[in-house]
């Protein structure tokens, strides 16, 4: 795999995605998470949500691309964690909702792994907290 250069503070190339209802349906099928709030407006509204929301795991799945596209190998990620703080509402239109992911090398550890902290922002608010990945380069 390609060599990457880094030090504490190195910022990884950001990733921006646009989630549409079709992406939510695709993730529902691929993951088996068929919860209605991720594709059925009436149900989402009935349980008090502002509308259909993306699966937290869809956001988490895309966020790690910041690391895997940088390091070039998903198996180098040995630990990955996220807290979901706000729902990502996805309207029933062609535009969908944009989410931007960024990452930064936070530490180089004694076992030669590095810890990358990640963030996800949509419509000006952060939607994940305490997000980090441990990478064995």
């Amino acid at each position, binding site marked *: 795999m390609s060599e990457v250069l880094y030090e504490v503070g190195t910022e990884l190339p950001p990733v921006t995605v646009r989630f549409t209802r079709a992406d939510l349906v695709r993730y529902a099928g691929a993951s088996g998470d068929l919860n209605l709030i991720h594709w059925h407006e009436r149900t989402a509204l009935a349980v008090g949500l502002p509308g259909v929301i993306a699966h937290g795991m869809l956001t988490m799945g*895309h966020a790690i691309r910041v690391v895997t596209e940088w390091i070039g190998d998903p198996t180098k990620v040995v630990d990955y964690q996220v807290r*979901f703080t706000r729902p990502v509402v996805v309207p029933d239109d062609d535009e969908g909702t944009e989410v931007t992911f960024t990452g930064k090398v936070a530490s180089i550890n004694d076992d030669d792994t590095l810890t990358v902290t990640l963030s996800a922002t949509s419509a000006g608010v952060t939607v994940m907290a305490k997000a980090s990945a441990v990478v064995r380069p």
Partner: protein
Amino acid sequence: MALDAANVGRTFIAPEPYLVGREKIREFAQATGETSPLCHDLAAARAAGHADVVAPVTFPIVLTLKAMGEAVTDPSVGVDWSRVVHGDQRFSYRRPLVAGDELTVHTVIESIKTLAGNDMITLRGDLFDAAGLALGSTWTSLVQRGE
């Protein structure tokens, strides 16, 4: 009704192993934007030393969410799936997950807490391969909103 903390420490073993399929990995990779050839191209995965295509980092949720759902909706635990939102998620690997792995999930209830009228339940899913070796673990915290 609050969840009963007496359930902390209980373990639920999935009744049968989950066979990880090559096309399921490709489908999941496509759905999460993971374009690494290691997840899609058998020759590339083998050239890198893997037995088959490798799973995207968050793929274990496919197995563990199913196993956890079956565990926590057991009447003795009593989680109401329709009132649950995902709070935290973590994945930890001892080795890569590849197509062809046959994995059994052991779901452990790690904690049950009540915060501001909501119940938070934290579950650990330990993954074991067909040889009985640990592949890794997942942690899922679910928040059950008060009625």
